[in-house]
């Protein structure tokens, strides 16, 4: 052992100690400021956490790109879904007149909304791109009510951390953090390109979350649960996506 290598050893040791304690402090701060995603464990947890934390810091208030009317895709793609359940078919036969959106959890006034009720609130529109994780995309105009409006109506608790949202179809649910839930472009959409939202595109009610990939914009929504605890749902990873190997946070 030469002197040089001993010095190297000591420096490396010190650097490693500093690095590990630095990581510890970073992990603590990240937890405190809500920069850790529910699927932070496992082999790919570090990558998911780095991505989510960076994007939360970079994009808290940024707006998804909006497009001009002329850029709306001529034929919006109707991505395939599993065959509809009998329950869904019954609602479809009744033209979704008795479709309800139930909102509960950490809210002052648990409420159940009909689609017509949702339409009675000030309607907003956005021309944004649906981006699929496979690689394809299209632009459409979406009409709906901002999620934040509904959360205001039901009186969501300030301690709430996530909004879980559920499709009527089985095993199809996601969640978003409050930064996304209160974001002005996060919609419950009931219209597309000026008409009713077609069933193929998620009608009667679909979440739009344009700063994340398409799989976060779940179709056929009939329930929202406001919560501060992801552990209560499924395997506690925030949504079904991580259970199938996909990222919970899909802003990339």
């Amino acid at each position, binding site marked *: 052992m030469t002197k040089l290598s001993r010095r190297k050893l000591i420096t490396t040791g010190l650097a490693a100690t500093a690095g590990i304690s630095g990581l510890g402090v970073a992990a603590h701060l990240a937890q405190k400021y809500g920069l850790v995603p529910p699927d932070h464990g496992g082999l790919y947890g570090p990558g998911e956490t780095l991505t989510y934390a960076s994007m939360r810091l970079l994009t808290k208030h940024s707006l998804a790109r909006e497009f001009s009317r002329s850029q709306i*895709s001529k034929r919006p793609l109707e991505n395939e879904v599993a065959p509809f359940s009998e329950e869904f078919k019954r609602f479809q036969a009744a033209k979704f007149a008795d479709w309800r959106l139930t909102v509960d959890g950490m809210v002052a006034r648990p409420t159940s909304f009909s689609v017509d009720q949702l339409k009675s609130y000030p309607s907003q529109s956005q021309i944004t791109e649906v981006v699929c994780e496979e690689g394809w995309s299209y632009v459409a105009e979406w009409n709906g009510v901002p999620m934040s409006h509904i959360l205001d109506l039901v009186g969501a608790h300030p301690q709430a951390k996530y909004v879980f949202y559920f499709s009527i179809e089985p095993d199809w649910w996601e969640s978003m953090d409050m930064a996304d839930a209160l974001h002005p472009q996060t919609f419950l959409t009931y219209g597309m390109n000026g008409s009713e939202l077609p069933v193929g595109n998620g009608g009667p009610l679909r979440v739009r979350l344009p700063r994340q990939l398409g799989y976060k914009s779940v179709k056929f929504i009939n329930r929202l649960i406001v919560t501060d605890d992801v552990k209560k749902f499924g395997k506690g990873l925030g949504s079904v996506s991580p259970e199938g190997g996909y990222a919970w946070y899909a802003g990339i």
Partner: protein
Amino acid sequence: MFVRVTHWITTLCFFALLISGAEIVVSHPRFYWGETGNVLTEPLFKIPIPSSRNLVPTGYGYVMPDQNGWSRALHFQTAWVLVLTGLLYVIVSLITEHLRKNLLPSKADLSWRNCVGVIAHHLRLEKPSEADASSYNVLQRITYLLVIFILFPSVIWTGLALSPAFDSAFPATVNLLGGRQSARTLHFFITLALVLFLLVHVVLVWRAGFINRTRAMITGQSSNREEVQ
């Protein structure tokens, strides 16, 4: 030594990114130009392989197994490692003057005479000389600079342009490239350029003596016991 360590981390990352990227392409082996593109629009070109999704009409009667979940997770995590390694490499290269001493071609290197000489040497497929073992020639310097400062930054840029969240914070990232689908297509072609570099790189290392050169890149010792980096 940092050159050798970052070189091999980058090599590992590149293979992980290449394999996972290929798996992701399989889920939609069609490429477009502009902002939008999907199975209802005309592609710029298609890769004639079966897809891992039902949605894509490939002409094959079957659907490949879906590998997108782990592929995407691996792709993005490895991208983080690659970007952080690349940043470390550039910073240390500037501090230790590795960049100036070993990569920036000198005036003499760039002279017409020297360039023609090096090119002729390559074209005649001559074995590299002893001097080549301890210093990069002008073609190597220019190629490495292109790869480090043009191709890798471009592949990272076009990759980031595919992130809807990053685009919301920095819309120019994707708008300057002519739209999302253009960014995806460019990401693909820059990857092909990097693969081409890798192939030529390995062939040239092979001609210089693969075992000897690779050992040198791992241990820092060439056969005549000279410190390489």
